[in-house]
Protein backbone atom coordinates (compact mmCIF):
# COMPACT_ATOMS: atom_id res chain seq x y z
CA UNK A 1 0.00 0.00 0.00
CA UNK A 2 1.34 3.37 -1.03
CA UNK A 3 2.05 6.57 0.90
CA UNK A 4 0.24 9.65 -0.40
CA UNK A 5 1.60 13.13 0.26
CA UNK A 6 -0.45 16.31 -0.02
CA UNK A 7 -0.08 19.93 1.04
CA UNK A 8 -1.46 23.02 -0.68
CA UNK A 9 1.86 24.64 0.30
CA UNK A 10 4.58 23.77 -2.22
CA UNK A 11 7.53 23.98 0.17
CA UNK A 12 5.75 21.86 2.72
CA UNK A 13 4.89 19.35 -0.02
CA UNK A 14 8.60 18.89 -0.73
CA UNK A 15 9.27 18.43 3.00
CA UNK A 16 6.61 15.72 3.09
CA UNK A 17 8.41 13.97 0.26
CA UNK A 18 11.61 13.84 2.35
CA UNK A 19 9.67 12.39 5.29
CA UNK A 20 7.86 9.89 3.06
CA UNK A 21 11.21 8.70 1.74
CA UNK A 22 12.41 8.03 5.31
CA UNK A 23 9.39 5.76 5.78
CA UNK A 24 9.50 4.19 2.34
CA UNK A 25 13.20 3.36 2.66
CA UNK A 26 12.34 1.17 5.61
CA UNK A 27 9.04 -0.43 4.73
CA UNK A 28 9.59 -0.53 0.98
CA UNK A 29 6.43 1.12 -0.23
CA UNK A 30 5.68 3.45 -3.12
CA UNK A 31 5.24 7.22 -2.69
CA UNK A 32 2.64 9.19 -4.62
CA UNK A 33 2.09 12.94 -4.52
CA UNK A 34 -1.20 14.71 -5.06
CA UNK A 35 -1.85 18.29 -6.21
CA UNK A 36 -5.18 20.05 -6.43
CA UNK A 37 -5.52 22.53 -9.31
CA UNK A 38 -1.86 23.58 -9.01
CA UNK A 39 0.14 22.64 -12.12
CA UNK A 40 3.27 24.46 -11.00
CA UNK A 41 3.36 22.52 -7.74
CA UNK A 42 2.78 19.26 -9.60
CA UNK A 43 5.75 19.97 -11.87
CA UNK A 44 7.97 20.83 -8.89
CA UNK A 45 7.05 17.63 -7.07
CA UNK A 46 7.54 15.53 -10.20
CA UNK A 47 10.92 17.18 -10.71
CA UNK A 48 11.89 15.99 -7.23
CA UNK A 49 11.35 12.46 -8.49
CA UNK A 50 7.98 11.45 -7.06
CA UNK A 51 5.09 10.02 -9.01
CA UNK A 52 2.74 13.00 -9.08
CA UNK A 53 -0.98 13.13 -9.70
CA UNK A 54 -2.79 16.35 -10.56
CA UNK A 55 -6.51 16.78 -10.07
CA UNK A 56 -7.99 19.59 -12.16
CA UNK A 57 -11.46 20.26 -10.87
CA UNK A 58 -12.57 23.75 -9.93
CA UNK A 59 -15.45 22.41 -7.85
CA UNK A 60 -12.84 21.48 -5.22
CA UNK A 61 -12.82 24.43 -2.85
CA UNK A 62 -9.61 24.87 -0.80
CA UNK A 63 -11.53 26.89 1.78
CA UNK A 64 -13.91 23.97 2.28
CA UNK A 65 -12.13 21.28 4.30
CA UNK A 66 -14.84 18.72 3.55
CA UNK A 67 -14.39 19.31 -0.18
CA UNK A 68 -10.60 18.83 -0.04
CA UNK A 69 -10.92 15.82 2.29
CA UNK A 70 -13.45 14.29 -0.12
CA UNK A 71 -11.06 14.65 -3.05
CA UNK A 72 -8.21 13.13 -1.02
CA UNK A 73 -10.36 10.24 0.13
CA UNK A 74 -11.29 9.38 -3.44
CA UNK A 75 -7.70 9.77 -4.64
CA UNK A 76 -6.48 7.54 -1.80
CA UNK A 77 -8.98 4.89 -2.89
CA UNK A 78 -7.97 5.04 -6.55
CA UNK A 79 -4.25 5.06 -5.80
CA UNK A 80 -4.25 2.25 -3.23
CA UNK A 81 -3.04 4.37 -0.32
CA UNK A 82 -2.95 3.34 3.35
CA UNK A 83 -0.89 6.23 4.74
CA UNK A 84 -1.42 9.91 4.02
CA UNK A 85 1.16 12.54 4.98
CA UNK A 86 -0.14 16.09 5.28
CA UNK A 87 1.46 19.37 6.29
CA UNK A 88 0.61 20.50 9.82
CA UNK A 89 0.11 24.12 8.87
CA UNK A 90 -3.37 25.45 9.64
CA UNK A 91 -5.06 24.17 6.49
CA UNK A 92 -3.34 20.82 6.78
CA UNK A 93 -4.20 20.39 10.44
CA UNK A 94 -7.84 21.17 9.83
CA UNK A 95 -7.85 18.70 6.94
CA UNK A 96 -6.14 15.91 8.88
CA UNK A 97 -9.01 15.14 11.25
CA UNK A 98 -11.67 15.26 8.55
CA UNK A 99 -9.71 13.01 6.20
CA UNK A 100 -8.86 10.60 9.02
CA UNK A 101 -12.55 10.31 9.88
CA UNK A 102 -13.44 9.66 6.22
CA UNK A 103 -10.75 7.00 5.94
CA UNK A 104 -11.49 5.49 9.36
CA UNK A 105 -7.84 6.19 10.12
CA UNK A 106 -5.85 7.02 13.23
CA UNK A 107 -4.35 10.47 13.05
CA UNK A 108 -1.45 12.38 14.58
CA UNK A 109 -0.89 16.09 13.93
CA UNK A 110 1.97 18.51 14.70
CA UNK A 111 4.42 15.64 14.31
CA UNK A 112 7.96 17.03 14.45
CA UNK A 113 9.95 13.87 13.90
CA UNK A 114 9.49 10.27 12.90
CA UNK A 115 11.38 7.01 12.60
CA UNK A 116 10.44 3.51 11.56
CA UNK A 117 10.95 0.83 14.21
CA UNK A 118 9.96 -2.76 13.43
CA UNK A 119 7.91 -1.60 10.48
CA UNK A 120 5.92 0.90 12.57
CA UNK A 121 6.15 4.66 12.14
CA UNK A 122 6.93 6.20 15.51
CA UNK A 123 6.10 9.91 15.67
CA UNK A 124 7.21 12.55 18.15
CA UNK A 125 5.01 15.48 19.08
CA UNK A 126 4.62 17.93 21.95
CA UNK A 127 2.04 17.17 24.61
CA UNK A 128 0.90 18.69 27.90
CA UNK A 129 1.16 22.11 26.37
CA UNK A 130 4.75 21.46 25.31
CA UNK A 131 6.01 20.31 28.72
CA UNK A 132 6.70 16.86 27.35
CA UNK A 133 7.49 15.19 24.05
CA UNK A 134 5.50 12.04 23.37
CA UNK A 135 6.50 9.22 21.08
CA UNK A 136 3.31 7.81 19.59
CA UNK A 137 2.30 5.41 16.88
CA UNK A 138 -0.95 4.84 15.06
CA UNK A 139 -2.32 1.35 15.62
CA UNK A 140 -4.93 1.30 12.85
CA UNK A 141 -4.04 0.11 9.36
CA UNK A 142 -4.91 3.44 7.78
CA UNK A 143 -2.91 6.38 9.01
CA UNK A 144 -2.99 10.14 8.58
CA UNK A 145 0.11 11.96 9.80
CA UNK A 146 0.43 15.75 9.66
CA UNK A 147 4.03 16.99 9.84
CA UNK A 148 4.94 20.34 11.36
CA UNK A 149 6.61 22.73 8.89
CA UNK A 150 10.42 22.52 8.82
CA UNK A 151 10.58 19.15 10.53
CA UNK A 152 12.25 17.82 7.38
CA UNK A 153 14.25 19.50 4.63
CA UNK A 154 12.74 20.00 1.19
CA UNK A 155 13.41 17.25 -1.34
CA UNK A 156 15.69 18.53 -4.11
CA UNK A 157 15.11 18.44 -7.85
CA UNK A 158 16.75 15.41 -9.44
CA UNK A 159 17.96 14.54 -12.93
CA UNK A 160 15.22 13.13 -15.09
CA UNK A 161 12.42 13.72 -12.61
CA UNK A 162 9.05 12.08 -13.05
CA UNK A 163 6.03 13.09 -15.03
CA UNK A 164 2.71 14.48 -13.92
CA UNK A 165 -0.33 12.31 -14.44
CA UNK A 166 -3.85 13.69 -14.37
CA UNK A 167 -6.39 12.11 -12.08
CA UNK A 168 -10.13 12.58 -12.53
CA UNK A 169 -12.08 13.05 -9.32
CA UNK A 170 -15.73 14.09 -9.05
CA UNK A 171 -16.57 16.78 -6.52
CA UNK A 172 -19.88 18.25 -5.44
CA UNK A 173 -20.45 22.00 -5.40
CA UNK A 174 -19.17 23.43 -2.13
CA UNK A 175 -21.60 25.04 0.34
CA UNK A 176 -18.88 27.46 1.50
CA UNK A 177 -18.69 30.76 -0.37
CA UNK A 178 -15.44 32.73 -0.37
CA UNK A 179 -16.50 36.38 0.05
CA UNK A 180 -13.01 37.83 0.33
CA UNK A 181 -9.47 36.56 0.56
CA UNK A 182 -6.50 38.74 1.36
CA UNK A 183 -2.90 38.49 2.38
CA UNK A 184 -2.16 39.84 5.82
CA UNK A 185 -1.19 43.48 5.78
CA UNK A 186 2.40 44.59 6.10
CA UNK A 187 5.60 42.60 5.95
CA UNK A 188 5.17 39.07 7.17
CA UNK A 189 8.22 38.26 9.21
CA UNK A 190 9.60 34.78 8.68
CA UNK A 191 11.05 34.19 12.13
CA UNK A 192 11.24 30.45 11.48
CA UNK A 193 13.77 31.05 8.72
CA UNK A 194 16.01 33.38 10.73
CA UNK A 195 19.44 32.17 11.89
CA UNK A 196 19.44 34.62 14.76
CA UNK A 197 16.46 35.74 16.82
CA UNK A 198 16.24 38.43 19.46
CA UNK A 199 13.16 37.47 21.46
CA UNK A 200 11.55 39.96 23.80
CA UNK A 201 9.05 39.42 26.60
CA UNK A 202 6.98 41.39 29.04
CA UNK A 203 10.03 42.18 31.16
CA UNK A 204 11.05 44.72 28.56
CA UNK A 205 9.74 48.27 28.48
CA UNK A 206 8.37 49.59 25.23
CA UNK A 207 10.87 52.41 24.95
CA UNK A 208 13.72 49.86 25.08
CA UNK A 209 12.34 47.82 22.24
CA UNK A 210 14.15 49.99 19.73
CA UNK A 211 17.45 48.84 21.29
CA UNK A 212 16.45 45.19 21.00
CA UNK A 213 15.50 45.75 17.37
CA UNK A 214 18.82 47.42 16.78
CA UNK A 215 20.68 44.42 18.23
CA UNK A 216 18.69 42.11 15.96
CA UNK A 217 19.67 44.27 13.01
CA UNK A 218 23.37 44.36 13.91
CA UNK A 219 23.39 40.57 14.16
CA UNK A 220 21.42 40.22 10.89
CA UNK A 221 18.65 38.55 12.84
CA UNK A 222 14.93 39.04 13.33
CA UNK A 223 13.02 40.35 16.30
CA UNK A 224 10.49 37.95 17.83
CA UNK A 225 8.43 37.92 21.03
CA UNK A 226 6.43 36.01 23.59
CA UNK A 227 2.67 35.91 23.00
CA UNK A 228 1.54 38.73 25.34
CA UNK A 229 3.91 41.21 23.66
CA UNK A 230 1.93 40.79 20.43
CA UNK A 231 -1.60 39.93 21.58
CA UNK A 232 -1.93 42.08 24.74
CA UNK A 233 0.56 44.90 24.25
CA UNK A 234 0.48 44.83 20.44
CA UNK A 235 4.07 46.05 20.17
CA UNK A 236 4.81 43.49 17.48
CA UNK A 237 2.64 41.64 14.98
CA UNK A 238 1.40 38.13 15.68
CA UNK A 239 3.62 36.56 13.03
CA UNK A 240 6.52 37.22 15.42
CA UNK A 241 5.15 35.15 18.30
CA UNK A 242 7.33 32.27 19.51
CA UNK A 243 5.62 29.47 21.39
CA UNK A 244 2.90 26.87 21.47
CA UNK A 245 0.35 29.02 19.68
CA UNK A 246 2.99 30.86 17.66
CA UNK A 247 6.01 29.65 15.73
CA UNK A 248 8.38 26.83 16.63
CA UNK A 249 11.82 28.20 15.77
CA UNK A 250 15.20 26.51 15.53
CA UNK A 251 17.64 29.40 15.07
CA UNK A 252 21.39 29.08 15.52
CA UNK A 253 21.19 31.74 18.22
CA UNK A 254 18.31 33.03 20.33
CA UNK A 255 18.87 35.98 22.63
CA UNK A 256 15.89 35.98 24.96
CA UNK A 257 15.23 39.19 26.89
CA UNK A 258 12.70 39.73 29.65
CA UNK A 259 10.90 36.41 29.20
CA UNK A 260 10.19 34.32 32.30
CA UNK A 261 10.16 31.06 30.39
CA UNK A 262 6.81 29.33 30.82
CA UNK A 263 6.60 26.14 28.85
CA UNK A 264 4.03 27.61 26.42
CA UNK A 265 6.85 29.91 25.36
CA UNK A 266 9.91 27.67 25.63
CA UNK A 267 8.40 24.99 23.40
CA UNK A 268 8.82 27.43 20.53
CA UNK A 269 12.51 28.10 21.07
CA UNK A 270 14.02 25.13 22.92
CA UNK A 271 15.41 23.65 19.70
CA UNK A 272 17.66 26.68 19.17
CA UNK A 273 21.34 25.75 18.89
CA UNK A 274 22.52 28.39 21.37
CA UNK A 275 20.32 30.22 23.87
CA UNK A 276 21.23 33.42 25.71
CA UNK A 277 18.82 34.55 28.43
CA UNK A 278 18.79 38.00 29.97
CA UNK A 279 16.33 38.56 32.80
CA UNK A 280 16.50 40.57 36.02
CA UNK A 281 14.82 37.76 37.97
CA UNK A 282 17.45 35.20 38.89
CA UNK A 283 14.72 32.64 39.59
CA UNK A 284 13.16 32.95 36.14
CA UNK A 285 13.01 29.51 34.53
CA UNK A 286 14.49 30.88 31.32
CA UNK A 287 17.94 30.88 32.97
CA UNK A 288 17.74 27.10 33.34
CA UNK A 289 17.33 26.54 29.65
CA UNK A 290 20.06 28.93 28.55
CA UNK A 291 23.61 28.26 27.47
CA UNK A 292 24.54 31.75 28.67
CA UNK A 293 22.42 33.36 31.31
CA UNK A 294 22.70 36.90 32.56
CA UNK A 295 20.84 38.27 35.55
CA UNK A 296 20.64 41.94 34.68
CA UNK A 297 18.42 44.96 34.22
CA UNK A 298 17.61 45.33 30.52
CA UNK A 299 17.41 49.09 30.85
CA UNK A 300 21.01 49.15 31.96
CA UNK A 301 22.61 46.64 29.67
CA UNK A 302 20.76 47.12 26.36
CA UNK A 303 22.62 50.35 25.50
CA UNK A 304 25.91 48.71 26.47
CA UNK A 305 25.23 45.59 24.43
CA UNK A 306 24.27 47.70 21.43
CA UNK A 307 27.48 49.62 21.64
CA UNK A 308 29.64 46.55 22.20
CA UNK A 309 28.20 44.69 19.22
CA UNK A 310 28.08 47.60 16.78
Amino acid sequence: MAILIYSENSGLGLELLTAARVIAADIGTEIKALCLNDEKQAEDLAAAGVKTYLIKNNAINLADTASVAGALEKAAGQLGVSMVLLGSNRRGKELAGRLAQKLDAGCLTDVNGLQVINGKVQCTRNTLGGATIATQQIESERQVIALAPRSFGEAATIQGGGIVQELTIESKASPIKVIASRNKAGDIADIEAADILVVIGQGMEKEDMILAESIAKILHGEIACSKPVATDKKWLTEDRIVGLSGKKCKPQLAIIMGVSGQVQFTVGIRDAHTIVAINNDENAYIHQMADYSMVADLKEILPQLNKALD
Partner: protein
Amino acid sequence: MNIVVAVKQVPDLQQVRIRNRQPILEGVPLTLGRIDKNALEAGLQLKEANGSNLIVLCAGNEEVEETIKEALAAGADEAYLVLDNRLADMDGSLSASLLAAAIKKIDDVGLLLFGEGSGDNYSGQVSSRVAEILGYPQIGYASRIELEGKIARVTRTLEDSEEVLEVELPLVVGVLGDINEPRIPSVTQILKAGRKPKEIIELDDLDIDLSANKRIATLSNLAPKNERKRAAVKTVNDLVSALQAEGFAGRH
Protein backbone atom coordinates in the same frame (compact mmCIF):
# COMPACT_ATOMS: atom_id res chain seq x y z
CA MET B 1 -31.53 27.69 17.82
CA ASN B 2 -28.93 26.00 19.99
CA ILE B 3 -25.29 26.96 19.99
CA VAL B 4 -23.20 24.07 21.30
CA VAL B 5 -19.70 24.64 22.67
CA ALA B 6 -17.63 21.48 23.05
CA VAL B 7 -14.98 21.65 25.77
CA LYS B 8 -12.34 19.31 27.16
CA GLN B 9 -11.30 18.78 30.73
CA VAL B 10 -7.51 18.99 31.00
CA PRO B 11 -4.96 19.13 33.82
CA ASP B 12 -4.04 22.67 34.85
CA LEU B 13 -0.80 22.86 32.90
CA GLN B 14 0.64 25.58 35.14
CA GLN B 15 0.65 23.04 37.94
CA VAL B 16 2.22 20.10 36.13
CA ARG B 17 5.68 19.47 37.57
CA ILE B 18 8.45 17.45 35.97
CA ARG B 19 10.47 14.95 38.01
CA ASN B 20 13.19 12.85 36.33
CA ARG B 21 11.73 14.00 33.02
CA GLN B 22 8.37 12.46 33.97
CA PRO B 23 5.30 14.71 34.19
CA ILE B 24 3.64 14.48 37.61
CA LEU B 25 -0.13 14.61 37.07
CA GLU B 26 -1.23 13.33 40.48
CA GLY B 27 -2.96 16.02 42.48
CA VAL B 28 -3.03 18.45 39.56
CA PRO B 29 -6.49 20.06 39.43
CA LEU B 30 -8.57 19.68 36.28
CA THR B 31 -9.81 22.68 34.36
CA LEU B 32 -11.26 23.64 30.98
CA GLY B 33 -8.81 23.92 28.11
CA ARG B 34 -7.47 27.43 27.59
CA ILE B 35 -8.79 27.88 24.06
CA ASP B 36 -12.06 26.14 24.99
CA LYS B 37 -12.74 29.24 27.06
CA ASN B 38 -12.35 31.35 23.92
CA ALA B 39 -14.84 29.11 22.13
CA LEU B 40 -17.24 29.53 25.04
CA GLU B 41 -16.81 33.31 25.01
CA ALA B 42 -17.46 33.38 21.25
CA GLY B 43 -20.62 31.35 21.87
CA LEU B 44 -21.74 33.68 24.66
CA GLN B 45 -21.30 36.76 22.49
CA LEU B 46 -23.35 35.18 19.68
CA LYS B 47 -26.01 34.09 22.18
CA GLU B 48 -26.25 37.63 23.49
CA ALA B 49 -26.46 39.08 19.97
CA ASN B 50 -28.91 36.54 18.57
CA GLY B 51 -30.85 35.25 21.56
CA SER B 52 -29.82 31.63 21.09
CA ASN B 53 -29.62 28.97 23.77
CA LEU B 54 -26.08 27.97 24.70
CA ILE B 55 -25.27 24.36 25.58
CA VAL B 56 -21.84 23.33 26.78
CA LEU B 57 -20.85 19.77 25.92
CA CYS B 58 -18.12 17.66 27.48
CA ALA B 59 -17.11 14.00 27.68
CA GLY B 60 -14.87 12.66 30.42
CA ASN B 61 -14.68 11.09 33.85
CA GLU B 62 -16.94 11.96 36.79
CA GLU B 63 -14.91 15.06 37.64
CA VAL B 64 -16.31 16.76 34.53
CA GLU B 65 -19.45 17.53 36.53
CA GLU B 66 -17.38 19.81 38.75
CA THR B 67 -15.13 21.21 36.02
CA ILE B 68 -18.09 22.21 33.84
CA LYS B 69 -19.42 24.59 36.52
CA GLU B 70 -16.91 27.15 35.27
CA ALA B 71 -18.64 27.21 31.87
CA LEU B 72 -22.11 27.36 33.40
CA ALA B 73 -21.00 30.21 35.62
CA ALA B 74 -19.65 32.11 32.63
CA GLY B 75 -23.13 32.02 31.07
CA ALA B 76 -23.86 28.69 29.39
CA ASP B 77 -27.57 27.82 29.81
CA GLU B 78 -27.19 24.08 30.22
CA ALA B 79 -24.68 21.25 30.03
CA TYR B 80 -24.71 17.93 28.19
CA LEU B 81 -22.18 15.59 29.75
CA VAL B 82 -21.01 12.14 28.74
CA LEU B 83 -19.67 10.77 32.00
CA ASP B 84 -17.76 7.56 32.56
CA ASN B 85 -14.59 6.84 34.46
CA ARG B 86 -13.33 4.80 31.53
CA LEU B 87 -13.09 8.10 29.63
CA ALA B 88 -10.03 9.40 31.41
CA ASP B 89 -7.58 9.19 28.53
CA MET B 90 -9.26 9.33 25.14
CA ASP B 91 -7.72 9.82 21.75
CA GLY B 92 -9.25 12.22 19.25
CA SER B 93 -11.15 9.55 17.39
CA LEU B 94 -13.01 8.39 20.50
CA SER B 95 -13.68 11.92 21.76
CA ALA B 96 -15.19 12.81 18.41
CA SER B 97 -17.42 9.72 18.36
CA LEU B 98 -18.74 10.48 21.84
CA LEU B 99 -19.32 14.18 21.20
CA ALA B 100 -21.04 13.55 17.87
CA ALA B 101 -23.30 10.91 19.45
CA ALA B 102 -24.25 13.36 22.19
CA ILE B 103 -24.91 16.18 19.71
CA LYS B 104 -27.37 13.94 17.89
CA LYS B 105 -29.45 14.02 21.09
CA ILE B 106 -29.72 17.83 20.91
CA ASP B 107 -32.43 19.42 18.73
CA ASP B 108 -31.94 22.38 16.42
CA VAL B 109 -28.14 22.67 16.58
CA GLY B 110 -27.11 25.68 14.50
CA LEU B 111 -23.54 26.28 15.45
CA LEU B 112 -21.03 23.95 17.02
CA LEU B 113 -17.97 25.67 18.47
CA PHE B 114 -14.58 24.23 19.42
CA GLY B 115 -11.23 25.70 20.41
CA GLU B 116 -8.56 25.35 17.72
CA GLY B 117 -6.91 22.70 19.89
CA SER B 118 -7.23 21.22 23.35
CA GLY B 119 -5.22 22.64 26.22
CA ASP B 120 -3.10 19.54 26.74
CA ASN B 121 -2.73 17.73 23.44
CA TYR B 122 -3.45 20.51 20.94
CA SER B 123 -4.06 17.93 18.24
CA GLY B 124 -6.96 19.87 16.71
CA GLN B 125 -8.56 16.87 15.05
CA VAL B 126 -11.70 16.43 17.15
CA SER B 127 -13.67 19.32 15.62
CA SER B 128 -12.89 18.10 12.09
CA ARG B 129 -13.84 14.53 12.96
CA VAL B 130 -17.13 15.64 14.54
CA ALA B 131 -17.95 17.77 11.48
CA GLU B 132 -17.37 14.74 9.27
CA ILE B 133 -19.48 12.40 11.43
CA LEU B 134 -22.36 14.89 11.42
CA GLY B 135 -21.88 15.86 7.77
CA TYR B 136 -21.59 19.55 8.63
CA PRO B 137 -19.33 22.03 6.84
CA GLN B 138 -16.50 23.37 8.98
CA ILE B 139 -14.34 26.47 9.31
CA GLY B 140 -11.26 26.32 11.52
CA TYR B 141 -8.92 29.05 12.84
CA ALA B 142 -11.80 31.52 13.05
CA SER B 143 -10.93 35.06 14.14
CA ARG B 144 -14.45 36.47 13.67
CA ILE B 145 -17.94 34.95 13.61
CA GLU B 146 -21.21 36.70 12.71
CA LEU B 147 -24.65 35.18 12.38
CA GLU B 148 -27.48 36.53 10.26
CA GLY B 149 -30.48 34.24 10.41
CA LYS B 150 -29.33 30.90 9.06
CA ILE B 151 -26.18 32.29 7.46
CA ALA B 152 -22.79 32.44 9.20
CA ARG B 153 -20.05 34.75 8.06
CA VAL B 154 -16.69 33.62 9.42
CA THR B 155 -13.14 34.91 8.95
CA ARG B 156 -10.53 32.16 8.87
CA THR B 157 -7.02 33.41 9.63
CA LEU B 158 -4.19 31.39 8.12
CA GLU B 159 -0.44 31.84 8.58
CA ASP B 160 -0.08 34.64 6.04
CA SER B 161 -3.58 35.33 4.75
CA GLU B 162 -7.20 35.43 5.79
CA GLU B 163 -10.45 34.59 4.07
CA VAL B 164 -14.01 35.71 4.73
CA LEU B 165 -16.44 32.85 4.21
CA GLU B 166 -20.20 32.50 4.12
CA VAL B 167 -22.08 29.30 4.75
CA GLU B 168 -25.51 28.17 5.81
CA LEU B 169 -25.96 26.61 9.24
CA PRO B 170 -25.48 24.09 10.75
CA LEU B 171 -21.74 24.61 10.90
CA VAL B 172 -18.70 23.55 12.94
CA VAL B 173 -16.31 26.39 13.80
CA GLY B 174 -12.90 26.07 15.46
CA VAL B 175 -11.87 29.38 17.05
CA LEU B 176 -8.40 30.84 17.41
CA GLY B 177 -6.97 31.38 20.88
CA ASP B 178 -6.88 35.14 20.32
CA ILE B 179 -10.41 35.63 18.96
CA ASN B 180 -11.52 37.23 22.24
CA GLU B 181 -10.79 37.69 25.93
CA PRO B 182 -12.90 35.23 27.94
CA ARG B 183 -15.03 36.79 30.70
CA ILE B 184 -14.48 35.89 34.33
CA PRO B 185 -17.67 34.87 36.13
CA SER B 186 -18.75 36.73 39.27
CA VAL B 187 -19.13 35.01 42.64
CA THR B 188 -22.95 35.11 42.32
CA GLN B 189 -22.73 33.47 38.91
CA ILE B 190 -20.45 30.77 40.30
CA LEU B 191 -22.89 30.08 43.14
CA LYS B 192 -25.82 29.82 40.72
CA ALA B 193 -23.94 27.58 38.27
CA GLY B 194 -24.63 24.43 40.27
CA ARG B 195 -28.39 24.87 39.78
CA LYS B 196 -28.32 25.09 35.99
CA PRO B 197 -29.72 22.06 34.11
CA LYS B 198 -27.36 19.20 33.35
CA GLU B 199 -28.19 16.35 31.01
CA ILE B 200 -26.06 13.36 31.96
CA ILE B 201 -25.56 10.82 29.17
CA GLU B 202 -24.36 7.37 30.18
CA LEU B 203 -21.76 5.76 27.99
CA ASP B 204 -23.99 2.70 27.71
CA ASP B 205 -26.70 4.86 26.10
CA LEU B 206 -24.34 5.61 23.22
CA ASP B 207 -23.54 2.78 20.90
CA ILE B 208 -19.77 3.24 20.94
CA ASP B 209 -17.11 0.56 21.18
CA LEU B 210 -14.31 1.98 23.32
CA SER B 211 -11.62 -0.48 22.25
CA ALA B 212 -12.34 -0.12 18.52
CA ASN B 213 -11.74 3.59 18.83
CA LYS B 214 -8.31 3.24 20.40
CA ARG B 215 -6.06 4.12 17.48
CA ILE B 216 -3.06 5.79 19.07
CA ALA B 217 -0.46 4.13 21.29
CA THR B 218 1.77 6.35 23.40
CA LEU B 219 5.16 4.69 23.76
CA SER B 220 6.77 7.33 25.96
CA ASN B 221 6.05 10.84 27.18
CA LEU B 222 9.01 12.65 28.69
CA ALA B 223 10.19 16.20 29.21
CA PRO B 224 12.99 17.04 26.79
CA LYS B 225 16.55 16.59 28.02
CA ASN B 226 18.11 19.81 29.20
CA GLU B 227 21.64 19.81 27.86
CA ARG B 228 22.30 23.53 28.05
CA LYS B 229 25.59 24.92 29.31
CA ARG B 230 23.87 27.19 31.84
CA ALA B 231 26.95 29.41 32.12
CA ALA B 232 26.41 32.54 34.17
CA VAL B 233 27.54 35.71 32.41
CA LYS B 234 28.23 38.75 34.59
CA THR B 235 28.96 41.59 32.21
CA VAL B 236 28.11 42.74 28.71
CA ASN B 237 31.76 42.25 27.72
CA ASP B 238 31.63 38.63 28.88
CA LEU B 239 28.45 38.14 26.90
CA VAL B 240 29.97 39.58 23.74
CA SER B 241 33.06 37.38 24.21
CA ALA B 242 30.81 34.34 24.58
CA LEU B 243 28.90 35.27 21.42
CA GLN B 244 32.20 35.73 19.57
CA ALA B 245 33.47 32.38 20.82
CA GLU B 246 30.29 30.78 19.46
CA GLY B 247 30.95 32.51 16.16
CA PHE B 248 28.05 34.97 16.23
CA ALA B 249 29.18 38.49 17.01
CA GLY B 250 31.63 40.25 14.76
CA ARG B 251 30.77 38.22 11.67
CA HIS B 252 28.77 41.00 10.06
